[in-house]
């Protein structure tokens, strides 16, 4: 119930935000914040829940961008809203490409998987540079300027990014509450054991990867249209992958709100530092400093650390209360010794 209220407030606030007449640069910042929130939330499905740290998601960001870019090679812009309507198609294509890749790549684990997927990223970037006939190569790919009135130019992009974020969060929420989420938890904790108790290990892994890259591809499509120009080095950029990973780690892997919080800290933070420290690359050092500081204090991310502290405080409160039950007692320390505590009293009662 509280989750629904929290979600409702979030939706209402962000649905009405553009109505307050912010300046263009604020809306621009919000669009990028929402974009990274959406992509981190999507990355979290596979990187957080399934425990497979993909570094190749930017390849699918680029896939979505080029999907929209190539669509404009065959269509003229009329109302300007068509690219948004075909976004789900970009997602489907990314899912269809992602599924077989996931099937193969996810036979490897953890660090090897990260290397395999980062290879995928560079393969995609090399392809984008060299398939001149399709992508325009290093020259880039131009799209028509969206014919939106200047005062509300950012609105469609803002709402499109918001829609992708909300879709991603809804998918996350529903999977956490269903057996999909439980299966993913089991895969992350101990994949071999999960296989042995009948969890559809390969199925849920491939499913989570496909859904995740579909969402990222849709964000890439909106981004391309917003920029109205695609260069391979920006569309398929390791920085995009790193952004998703850092924001998810910062906010908390495997949580609903963690990636969103991470994005809302890091994207504006990065912009602010870039503004304060000027055009040099010093802001990246400051950015890394902020990240390291938080990771030093909260190595598991913001939300899990807070949740853990609350859980511990509640456990202390419960065990010091008048009607403390043995269920709330702190975990027994010793292996064999602790085990004896359980069956003896109940065995006597039987």
């Amino acid at each position, binding site marked *: 119930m509280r989750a629904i209220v929290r979600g409702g407030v979030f939706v209402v606030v962000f649905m009405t935000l553009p109505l307050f007449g912010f300046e263009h640069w604020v809306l621009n910042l919000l669009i990028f914040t929402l974009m990274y929130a959406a992509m981190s939330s999507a990355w979290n499905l596979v990187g957080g829940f399934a425990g497979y740290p993909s570094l190749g998601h930017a390849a699918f960001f680029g896939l979505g961008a080029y999907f929209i870019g190539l669509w404009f090679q065959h269509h003229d812009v009329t109302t300007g809203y068509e690219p948004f309507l075909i976004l789900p198609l970009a997602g489907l294509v990314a899912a269809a490409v992602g599924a077989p890749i996931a099937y193969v790549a996810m036979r490897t684990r953890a660090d090897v998987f990260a290397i395999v997927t980062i290879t995928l990223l560079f393969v995609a970037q090399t392809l984008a540079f060299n398939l001149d006939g399709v992508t325009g190569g290093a020259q880039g790919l131009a799209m028509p300027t969206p014919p939106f009135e200047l005062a509300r130019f950012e609105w469609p992009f803002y709402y499109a990014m918001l829609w992708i974020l909300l879709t991603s969060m809804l998918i996350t929420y529903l999977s956490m509450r269903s057996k999909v989420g*439980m299966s993913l938890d089991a895969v992350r904790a101990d994949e071999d054991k999960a296989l042995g108790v009948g969890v559809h290990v390969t199925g849920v892994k491939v499913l989570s990867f496909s859904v995740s890259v579909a969402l990222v591809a849709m964000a890439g499509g909106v981004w391309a249209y917003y920029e109205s120009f695609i260069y391979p080095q920006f569309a398929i950029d390791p920085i995009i992958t790193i952004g998703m990973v850092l924001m998810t780690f910062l906010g908390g892997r495997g949580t609903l709100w963690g990636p969103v919080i991470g994005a809302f800290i890091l994207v504006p933070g990065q912009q602010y530092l870039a503004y304060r420290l000027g055009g040099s690359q010093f802001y990246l050092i400051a950015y890394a400093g902020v990240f390291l500081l938080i990771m030093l204090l909260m190595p598991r991310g913001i939300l899990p650390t807070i949740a853990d502290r609350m859980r511990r405080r509640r456990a202390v409160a419960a065990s010091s209360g008048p009607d403390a039950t043995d269920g709330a007692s702190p975990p027994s320390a010793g292996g064999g010794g602790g085990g004896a505590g359980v*069956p003896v009293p109940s065995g006597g009662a039987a």
Partner: protein
Amino acid sequence: MTALLEVTSAQKAFGGVRAVDDCSLTVEEGSITALIGPNGSGKTTLFNLITGYLKADGGQFRFRGQDVTGSDPGHLYRRGLTRTFQQARVFPHMSVTENLVVAGGYRWRDLVLPRVSGHDRHRAAELLEEFRMTHVADLLASELSYGQRKLLEFAAVLMSKPRLVLLDEPTAGVNPIMIDTMERHVRERNSAGVTFLVVEHDMQFVMRLCDPVVVLNNGKEIYAGSPADVQQNPLVLDAYLGT
């Protein structure tokens, strides 16, 4: 009695080491069969072959009358062949109840169901009651003692109503009272129709509980018989004590 599991000439080599070498074994329906042998005799490898964690180099595996050679562990689990691990593998960040529910052997279309449905909760509660673990139902599995984790792992594989349970050293590292508890649960489940194949080093536990006892040495079955016979058999004594 009919054969529930039949292994015929199973082979598995790791490089030059023939861990399981032309091994045949039969587990009768309704039995508690023990699998014993000195260290390195191939017990764990054979377990991994039977449960699909390793692919055999050769041989045939039949379960419930059907050829299941090459099946993966998930497929076998849903057909009723389950196992526990030597190290008590549970999912540490899930609650005790969730550890049971996740092992329910769900079909694809069940994935959309709630994480822990009312029906799941009910079934988990029944098992926890049977294992006298009701009071820890909402604790995280990481908060349990090692012995309790062993019980939890055992209880979890029962969620799928298995026909055959393979226990890998159920008493290793747990205290004597927990060993009695484990023995009682195996007996209760066995009389309810579940067949067991047990790898165990605690010979008193084996001799009390199991019949027949199968002895492996150098990857082969060297003897199978009642516990009393096994203790007298010169081949077995030779394998354990050496010459």
